[in-house]
């Protein structure tokens, strides 16, 4: 009984001590006390605010003396009371602490202190059309009085909530037309159709949302090369999650897309050569409505750039066969993320030709024969072209002008490029007609080269004859002269 009494006493003492220590700071905050007494909603909200939990009083933002219960003193200008911060520069209230590492540590926070630096240069920080401060400042996204830790599911910027937050402006035609009338306003609705959007709707905080790709404070226009979603930056942005094996494990999707893409013809063109017309992840998968294209739409997706190839393929005998077997169209021969440069070796009857994946001497024979003929035609043209170049080079070395013929050979390159497109019709006659154009150019150029070489020798033979004739005349004249002078 004695022991029980001691326990109760100690517990009571601890509770008293704890209550005293917890309310010491808050008890001194006369602002909240008074405003709660007045049934002020702001005060009520602030009690749930992360700042309140860190012991920051109303005066932390509004100024004044939080320790005084005299309203005239607590809210006097002499004590620094500013009232409701102006829309123009209210961010400065936040900046006061959030750029200062020491202050942040004092309140037990280790969040970064570069938000303002990032926000300052972002597109959101540009002034509003009527100069009422930045378009979006801290309050616009984080709200006021009920600010939560970003990891708190109740936070307005928590992954599952941020989409609606961004959409509150970006889905409003009324609002957006004030700043960028050309910018679509359907991002949120598209997002909700994407895999990311579905997962997000189900409450998955790991699914990509607006900030995952666009960034949070450092947001730039898509066409600004500093933007995380600028064409050359997109692959690495996507790979942040998609190359993370641990993260992707639960979605059961591979993580080699980025590694493959950077080696692909598209990746090299975009990332190494800076060719912005080369597709990045979003060009095939979509951006806000990102989904892997279905087997049936692959040729359409590739066809957004490779229009002719798509049209020819759709009229080709392969279209029906691929549909029947549910083969992914372009991908079957070219691959997906690791699309290698299409070489002529892809056609033919021997590996690495992709035709042999389905055609052989025994199976699908017609296609096998056509592939062999196409390969022969394209190789013959290349050989003829190379031989003609040697002939023209020889003529040129001999000092003959073959610039026209040499220039005409540039068209052979064009024919070869076109034939590599025509091949997608998988029609031998069409392909042959194309290659024959090349043969015509080559044979004309070859003839010019051969004629130039013949002309070179003809000139020398002609010179030899004329030199001999003139020399004989000189000799004859010399003897005639000698005879004449001897006589005289």
């Amino acid at each position, binding site marked *: 009984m004695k022991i029980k009494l001691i326990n109760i006493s100690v517990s009571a003492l601890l509770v008293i001590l704890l209550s005293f220590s917890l309310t010491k700071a808050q008890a001194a905050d006369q602002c909240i006390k008074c405003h709660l007494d007045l049934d002020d909603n702001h005060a009520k909200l602030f009690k749930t605010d992360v700042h309140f939990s860190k012991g920051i009083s109303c005066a932390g933002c509004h100024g004044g003396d939080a320790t005084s219960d005299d309203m005239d003193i607590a809210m006097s200008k002499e004590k620094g009371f500013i009232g409701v911060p102006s829309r123009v520069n209210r961010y400065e209230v936040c900046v006061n602490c959030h750029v200062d590492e020491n202050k942040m540590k004092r309140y037990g926070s280790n969040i970064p202190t570069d938000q303002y630096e990032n926000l300052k240069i972002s597109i959101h920080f540009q002034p509003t059309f009527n100069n009422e401060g930045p378009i979006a400042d801290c309050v616009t996204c984080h709200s006021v009085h009920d600010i939560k830790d970003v990891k708190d599911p109740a936070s307005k910027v928590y992954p599952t909530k941020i989409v609606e937050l961004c959409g509150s402006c970006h889905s409003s035609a009324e609002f957006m037309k004030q700043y960028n009338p050309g910018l679509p306003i359907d991002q949120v609705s598209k997002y909700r159709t994407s895999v990311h959007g579905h997962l997000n709707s189900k409450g998955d905080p790991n699914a990509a949302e607006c900030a995952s790709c666009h960034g949070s404070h450092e947001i730039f226009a898509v066409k600004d090369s500093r933007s995380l979603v600028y064409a050359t930056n997109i692959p690495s942005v996507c790979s942040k999650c998609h190359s993370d094996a641990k993260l992707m494990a639960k979605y059961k999707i591979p993580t080699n897309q980025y590694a493959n893409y950077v080696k692909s013809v598209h990746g090299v063109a975009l990332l190494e050569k800076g060719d912005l017309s080369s597709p990045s992840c979003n060009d095939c998968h979509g951006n806000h409505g990102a989904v892997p294209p279905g087997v049936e739409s692959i040729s359409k997706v590739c066809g957004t750039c490779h229009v002719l190839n798509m049209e020819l393929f759709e009229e080709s005998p392969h279209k029906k066969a691929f549909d029947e077997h549910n083969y992914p169209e372009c991908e079957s021969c070219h691959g997906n993320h690791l699309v290698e440069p299409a070489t002529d070796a892809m056609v033919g009857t021997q590996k690495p030709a992709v035709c042999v994946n389905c055609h052989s001497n025994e199976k699908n024979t017609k296609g096998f024969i056509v592939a062999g003929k196409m390969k022969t035609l394209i190789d013959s043209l290349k050989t003829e072209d190379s031989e003609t170049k040697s002939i023209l080079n020889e003529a040129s070395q001999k000092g003959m002008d073959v*610039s026209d013929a040499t220039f005409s050979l540039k068209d052979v390159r064009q024919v070869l490029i076109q034939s590599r497109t025509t091949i997608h019709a998988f029609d031998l006659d069409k392909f042959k007609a194309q290659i024959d154009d090349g043969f015509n150019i080559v044979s004309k150029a070859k003839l010019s080269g051969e004629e130039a070489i013949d002309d070179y020798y003809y000139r020398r033979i002609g010179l030899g004859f004329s030199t001999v004739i003139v020399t004989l005349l000189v000799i004859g004249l010399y003897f005639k002269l000698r005879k004449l002078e001897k006589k*005289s």
Partner: protein
Amino acid sequence: MEEKNTKAKGKLLSWLDERYDISGLIEFAKKKSVPKFRETIWYYFGGVALLLFVVQVISGILLLMYYKGTEDLAYESVKFISTKVSFGWLIRSVHSWSANLMVLAVFIHMFSVYFLKGFRKPRELTWYTGFGLLAISMAFGFSGYLLPWNELAFFATKVGTDIVGQVPLIGEPLLKLLRGGTDVTGATLSRFFGFHVAIFPGIFIILLTLHLLMIQRQGIAEPDDYKNLPPAEKKTIPFFPNFAMRELLIWLIVINILAILAVFFPWELGTKADPFSSAPVGIKPEWYFLFMFQVFKFLPGEILFLPGELVGVLLFGIGVLLWAIVPVWDKKTAKGNKNRLLTYVGIFVIIFIIVFTILGFILD
């Protein structure tokens, strides 16, 4: 048979003689003689220059049938001549090579006349017309160089006309007159084309006719060493047929050399002129302007408070003028005395030209 030929020849001669007094001309030619001595060889270079001028006229007329003297078409037309026209390459190459050989022949002819003192009284006017012919030959070369409208010619013309612009007082208007504006443009090409095919040939023909008439009238000059020989020791060559045949023999050799040069070293066309591109490295004028060009390159920016190029133009101007009026200031030779200074000046000029031409070729 021989008798029949002689008869036919006689008939033709008498037919011509009846109409044109050919026998008088033959008699005149038979009486004409050329001194025969150690230096006779130099007498042939005037004839070589004449032959090459004739080659120039014939090949030039043939080129004119296809050449288009406009900024847009000049290069293409020369290319067409070189590649598509039958023997066009040969005609163009012969025209270019014979132009160079002609200037060389004129230079040799001038120096031989200078050293053999062929300019003295009473042949002063022959010298002046000859000097005029040299100047026009060089002007032919300068104007013709631009006509293919290739890169090298374009920039060389720019540099060349820039130098003309340095001539005191008349430099600026002269530059505008030559270029047809402040810069080398299509207007310059049209102008140079006009000079090359109309104005210069006209002046050249007048001067050449005067030059040849004076030679015919006064006979070939005899050098002092030959003139002072006793009459018995004075050897002569009959002008017709001996000297004429010798000249013909040399002409045939020159034609052979010309053909070999034209076939083995065809004149290159280069790339089309682009007025907006920067000047290529190694711009050089034709070899006969190279010594002047090289001297200008060596001149400092400023000499005695005067621009270096202006000093160069003045010095060259004075030098050329003194050379041109040698019959005026060379009093000693005129009186039949030897003038060693004259010989030394001539040797200095030749060495000067050769050294600076070589430097122009080997230095960038």
